[in-house]
């Protein structure tokens, strides 16, 4: 940032001398040194930011057509689908965009877990990422309520009722969230206002996340620090090109859902208008919440109460704590992982635990989609126990016991070795 770039265009130069935006862009997106060994798993951050922009653009257009009132919301969404020019396209992009956003971000997170991108000096970068996930979840939940279908209504009811688990003030908080005595018009109105607000907060935090990664520089598949200019290539054209390839492939997948299976991720019940007098027989959250939903339901009745002799915490509260804890624990990961080696390529034991953890998350997702009965209950409890054990036991202990493979002395070394 210290050295200014010289521009030939006099207008650009005039602006840049007064506000160095072009110097910034040149430094951060043109010359910016990137580790030259990044693989395609490093595409997903860029993909996520593209989806965020798509969501904001389509969301603003939808907001121009949507009516946040209990007697008109459902019909206004149907009007968007039938009467508004390309309304079906905007809504299907927005609907499937939510799922695409979570797919891309979850892959981004697991890439970070595999290659140790959360370790020093990238702890704050990682924590900002966890904030982004929390904001995404809140935004997605609020948005899902707006069409005012059966799943919207009952999802809103169930999720807001989670807050009733808070001791002493829980019921008061739930009434406050609702603006009444049930999920109703005041709730819908504020959810719409917040759903419009949160993406802009999200955008700002993504901005911080990007600034932070440009301070430390990207991690890379070896996890070894960049040591010399020999280890890097400039962002443009190398990663603008690589990101573009990934973006085109990603847009194929995205478009395939939008045009050929637009309701694949949705619930048919949400095309039934909200009815406060009848709950659908089987309520499930959107797929991206399923693992957390499984954790919420995993805590057995009175388990904690009997165990700790602590009557304030009942099963409901314990479930809620476990569900939020499943995300909050990520904040502490940079310090829970005691290994000095970043990349799982050089951690022979952690590598296996990584795949076990991924399988555990997928299993939790499956359990979350199933009714809480029979074997599903026990599998869900075991998977939940492993989820927390992975962070609270495996990460700290593995760092002490595991013998990592010898690290390459630089990013270029393994490449040069392979080719010699």
């Amino acid at each position: 940032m210290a050295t200014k770039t010289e521009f030939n265009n006099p207008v650009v130069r005039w602006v840049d001398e007064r506000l160095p935006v072009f110097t910034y862009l040149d430094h951060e997106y043109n010359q910016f040194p990137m580790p030259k060994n990044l693989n395609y798993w490093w595409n997903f951050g860029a993909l996520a930011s593209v989806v965020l922009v798509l969501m904001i653009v389509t969301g603003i257009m939808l907001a121009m057509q949507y009516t946040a009132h209990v007697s008109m919301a459902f019909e206004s969404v149907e009007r968007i689908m039938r009467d508004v020019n390309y309304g079906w396209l905007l809504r299907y992009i927005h609907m499937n965009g939510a799922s695409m956003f979570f797919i891309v971000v979850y892959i981004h997170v697991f890439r970070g877990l595999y290659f140790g991108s959360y370790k020093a000096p990238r702890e704050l970068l990682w924590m900002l990422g966890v904030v982004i996930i929390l904001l995404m979840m809140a935004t997605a939940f609020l948005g899902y309520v707006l069409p005012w279908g059966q799943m919207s209504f009952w999802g809103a009811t169930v999720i807001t009722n989670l807050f009733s688990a808070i001791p002493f003030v829980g019921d008061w908080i739930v009434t406050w969230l609702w603006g009444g005595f049930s999920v109703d018009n005041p709730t819908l109105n504020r959810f719409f206002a917040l759903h419009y607000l949160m993406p802009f907060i999200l955008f700002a935090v993504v901005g911080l996340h990007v600034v932070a990664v440009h301070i430390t520089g990207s991690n890379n598949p070896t996890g070894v620090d960049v040591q010399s200019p020999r280890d890097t290539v400039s962002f443009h054209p190398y990663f603008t090109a690589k990101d573009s390839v990934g973006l085109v492939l990603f847009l194929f997948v995205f478009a395939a859902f939008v045009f050929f299976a637009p309701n694949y991720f949705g619930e048919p019940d949400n095309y039934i208008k909200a009815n406060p007098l009848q709950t659908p027989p089987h309520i499930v959250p959107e797929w991206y919440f399923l693992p957390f939903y499984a954790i919420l339901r995993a805590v057995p009745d009175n388990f904690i109460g009997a165990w700790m002799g602590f009557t304030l915490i009942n099963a409901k509260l314990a479930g809620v704590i476990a569900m939020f804890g499943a995300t909050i624990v990520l904040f502490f990961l940079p310090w829970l992982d005691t290994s000095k080696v970043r990349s799982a390529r050089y951690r022979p034991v952690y590598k296996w635990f990584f795949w076990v953890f991924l399988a555990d998350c997928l299993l939790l997702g499956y359990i979350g989609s199933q009714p809480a009965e029979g074997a599903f209950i026990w599998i869900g409890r075991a998977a939940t126990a492993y989820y927390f054990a992975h962070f609270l036991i495996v990460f700290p202990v593995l760092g002490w016991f595991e013998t990592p493979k010898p690290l390459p002395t630089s990013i270029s070394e393994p490449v040069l070795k392979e080719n010699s």
Partner: protein
Amino acid sequence: MADEVQTPESDDDGTRRREFLYLATLGVGAVGAAAFAWPIIDSMNPAADVLALSSIEVDLSPIQEGQSVTVKWRGKPVFIRRRTSDEIAAARAVKAGDLVDPQPDEERVQQPEWLILVGVCTHLGCIPLGQKSGEPTGDFGGWFCPCHGSHYDTSGRIRKGPAPKNLDVPNYVFLDDSTVRIG
């Protein structure tokens, strides 16, 4: 362009080939962005339910000679006046060449008796007075816009004041002697 693609790299270090690829990529990206921009822009155009309400039918039988009614069409008032023979004569007595927005009365009506106008002042969009009895009709016996003082005659033409154009005549057809479809 095709020649450039086939230019062997040895000829010019691949610079031309790289520039071609660069421009082609940008071009495809620009086409894609434009293709995505259109649905976004078009979504703000009138939707099907709005267009479905864009024509109305009006029953003219209750309107007596010398009376006016106002109907709402596309969110705007439409003035329908059954003119008296005096009003028709007054409108036709004026030489079109003397007007701000020259147009003979014959071009502004399909049947001389029925004057149908969009009741929006062509200055800045206010609704002129003169539809109800007792309202000012301006110096020319038609309509008077209270916002900035435009006077319209019995053919709805601007005669005095800041408005640049005559009151618009909407598209309409007489379905029969007593029914008109506007729009």
